[in-house]
Each structure stands twice: as C-alpha cells, then as structure tokens.
C-alpha cells in the first residue's frame, strides 16, 4: 500500500493505493494522526485505487473517525468499489461514515 496526501481548500485528501490490511494499517493511521496533530480537521480518504480493506483496515478507519471527531473534525470516505461497499454494508459502517461516490464530490461537500 502507498498513499498520497494533498490539501484541497482546507481539506486533507488521502488517496490509498493497494490494499488496506492488517500488515500496513498502521502506516495510514500514523500519517492521518500526524496531520490531525498538525491542526488539520477535515479529512477525505479516497479508495479509487484500493482493491480490498480487511477488518483491521476497517477498524483503523473507525478509530481515526473517533479521534478526528474528538478534535472537532470529520472524516469522510470516497470512491468505494462494489466489493468495498459490500463490506461496509455488511458491517453497517456505511451508517457511520459519509461516503461519496467520488473524491470531488466528497471535497465539494465539505
């Protein structure tokens, strides 16, 4: 997994490439927390180029969402493929996150 971080009009956009799984979830968590501690409050994590998220990856997203909310911010997700949407729906995490179809939609809506 690799990820690109950019800033778009006050929103921190993290684009995940590859799989977000137990073996690499801490990298994403650490990077987002660095930006949170640096003062960023609005986050979008985009999964346009993500094939799979396992339960550990889902857990990291839940954990990050909690920490960002505690700081008065918000984490939104975008571009889940059909498989990822299935996993979010099964686990009911689709009720926890605002999920946009595209990163542009997520950024525009903030």
């Amino acid at each position, binding site marked *: 997994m690799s990820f690109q971080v950019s800033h778009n009009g006050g929103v921190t956009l993290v684009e995940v490439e590859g799989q977000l*799984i137990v073996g690499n979830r801490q990298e994403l968590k650490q990077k987002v927390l660095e930006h949170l501690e640096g003062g960023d409050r609005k986050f979008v994590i985009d999964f346009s180029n993500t094939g799979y998220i*396992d*339960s550990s990856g889902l*857990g990291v997203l839940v*954990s990050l969402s909690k920490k960002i909310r505690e700081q008065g911010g918000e984490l939104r997700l975008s571009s889940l493929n059909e498989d990822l949407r*299935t*996993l979010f729906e099964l686990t009911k995490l689709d009720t926890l996150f605002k999920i946009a179809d595209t990163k542009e939609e997520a950024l525009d809506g903030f």
Partner: protein
Amino acid sequence: MENEIVLELPTDVRSIEHAVDYVMRRCDACERQGHRLQLNFRVGLTEALANAMLYGNGHDPSKRVRVEIVVANGQIRACVTDQGMGFDYRSVPDPTTPENLLNPGGRGLFLMRQLLDEVSFNDQGNQVTLVLRLDPGPSVLEGGAPA
C-alpha cells in the same frame, strides 16, 4: 477430482497478503467461479489468517500457522490452525450493534460468518474451517497435488 494446497506460514501479518494471493493464483476455480470466490473466499481466508496470527499465536514469531486448502465435492474448504491456546469463539460480540459499532476490532469473525457458507471451530478454538460451496462446473487447484 480433488486437489490440495498446504502452507506453513510464520506469524508475520505482512505474509498474509502474499499467502492469500498465492492461494488465489493457484486456484484455477477462482477464475471460473468469479466474483463470489474472489471476494468471499479471499476475505474469509485473510481474516482467518489475521485472527490466527494476532489472537491465536499472539504475535509470537516463533509460532506458525498451518493452512490447508482443499477443493473437492463442489466446495472449497480452508482449514487454518494456529499454535495458540484457542479462544471462545462463541463469546465474540456482534460488531454491528449500536454499542459495538465504534469498536475498532471484532469484525473479522463476523465477516467470515457473513461471507462463507460454513464457519466452524475445533473444540480448542485454535482451528477454524471455512467452506464456500462452488457453483457447478469444473474446479481444480492449478498445479495442486492430487490428494
């Protein structure tokens, strides 16, 4: 026709992705079975390996995880065994209830049960068996040794 893959993995979560990819590449049935096997079986096997390494073997690098994959009788069966003390799989709470939804963990076993046709444990709780029934048609593990 019956085919089998057996793997012995170190307790290293970084090995999970490679191991699952290897199994999926070897499984010729995956190409023909398509989406259900690519999603359901891949997710189930990944979660079983993660549970075995994290909770079964407790991250102990001296312990190993054994994986046995068998395609036979219209189903693919994965048996994942760790060297831990086992756990009470019946006590794992439903992660989708409102009080558990914000918990960072506890979704692996739930996903296995949702996506596989059968999920069972041995009495000790250190071995999980996953079964996914295949659609009718030929299904072999490419290059796998006949049982």
